């Protein structure tokens, strides 16, 4: 058992499993945020419903924290050992038809940017200014006000655009690789998995991007 998690294959299972937790979370998070397109009240009520359900909130947060730590620790461990395994290359890397799948070669850099983004994003919103509002007689946090305030700044929008595009690229390789790491690859499904992973990433990153841009343009 312990040997399993120490092995390169076992670490990849952990990377895949923890990545899957976040890949699932971002899709749900993106879909929920779409309430901003309905109204500020709908957005605030949605946020309030989530924080009011303590079981859902703490369960999700627990899973996300476990997944984040596992993903980052495995990524650092794998990156270092992989670098050691490769040694120095002087004459160029595989290119043309023998080149690596785009996005897969700089997963660590994308991941680092996404991690920085997650930390700043939590600081900005979860632990950001606490405005209050009342929707249907219930007092709740006015996240919509904070969101509008934050996304009036073009610098923030630019940072979100860059980070979310990188998240999309990271997801496109990650989601596809889960199938390989978990042994679910099959010759017949290989091209479909590739396309589905790209589609999934475009929907998630595109959906997330639409929200700050919408808020910026509408206010």
């Amino acid at each position, binding site marked *: 058992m312990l040997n399993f998690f120490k092995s390169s294959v076992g670490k990849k299972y952990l990377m895949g499993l923890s990545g899957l937790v976040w890949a699932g979370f971002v899709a749900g998070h993106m879909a929920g945020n779409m309430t901003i397109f309905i109204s500020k009240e709908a957005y605030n009520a949605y946020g309030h419903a989530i924080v009011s359900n303590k079981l859902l909130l703490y369960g999700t947060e627990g899973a996300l924290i476990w997944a984040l730590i596992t993903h980052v620790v495995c990524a650092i461990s794998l990156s270092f050992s992989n670098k050691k395994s490769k040694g120095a290359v002087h*004459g160029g890397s595989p290119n043309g038809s023998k080149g690596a799948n785009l996005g897969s070669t700089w997963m660590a850099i994308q991941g680092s940017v996404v991690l920085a983004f997650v930390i700043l994003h939590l600081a900005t919103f979860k632990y950001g200014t606490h405005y209050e509002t009342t929707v249907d007689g219930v007092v709740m946090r006015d996240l919509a006000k904070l969101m509008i305030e934050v996304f009036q700044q073009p610098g923030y929008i630019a940072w979100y655009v860059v980070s979310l595009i990188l998240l999309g690229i990271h997801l496109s390789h990650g989601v596809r690789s889960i199938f390989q790491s978990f042994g679910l690859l099959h010759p017949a499904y290989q091209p479909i998995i590739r396309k589905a992973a790209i589609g999934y990433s475009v929907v998630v990153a595109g959906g997330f991007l639409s929200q700050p841009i919408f808020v910026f343009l509408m206010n």
Partner: protein
Amino acid sequence: MSDTKKMNLTLRVWRQKGSQQSGSFKEYLAKDVSPDDSFLEMLDQVNEQLISKGEDPIAFDHDCREGICGSCGFMINGNAHGPQKSTTVCQLHMRQFSDGDVLNLEPWRAAAFPVIKDLMVDRSAFDRIIKSGGYISVNTGNAPDGNALPIPKVNADEAFSSAACIGCGACVASCKNASAALFTSAKVTHLLSVPQGQVERERRVLSMVETMDAEGFGACSSTGSCSASCPKDISLVNIAKMNKEYLKAAFNKKPETNLEEGV
């Protein structure tokens, strides 16, 4: 001899006297190269000139020169076995290149493949992976009758396509992590596809993955470069199969299947 136009190329070749010495690129001119020459024939000609000048010829591995033995291989401008797909460097012909090309020739790069000399690397780590589990238990003696052991066509095809791996090491050299996952998984898949391979099924995958890691190969990042560079087109699906086998074996393993004891 065809009357096609001869080419002149510049070769930047990695020269390293031994595993303990440091190496560097050295430039050589390959003059009047026929497009019909194989890459190794072109290197032979360069070496002839070096020898006639009293210089040390460029060392490179080769044997059958038919693309089936797995001896040859080095990087040409970053690509294992050169730019052409499904080809070993001995079967790569100079018609793939143009007059005036500058080519970087570098040995396979991997901590597990130390350079022996110039473009030659020590691939005995692959042998140790095979030794750790790439075998089956059979009675020795006469060859059994053909079809005495029925094997479905699909399984036989799968075993054959995985067994096509010649162990050249291009997968490791192409991988940014120097992972041996494609090689190891081809051997695992080959033997698990046939009934003869079932006896050691669990201990095989556990042992081969363990040896692969212990030899210092990296983890698979599924960049796909290994399969794209493989002269035998070994599929990435093999790696998925190996991972699944490894998971099953790690959690199913019975104490008596531990090979390490008593060895």
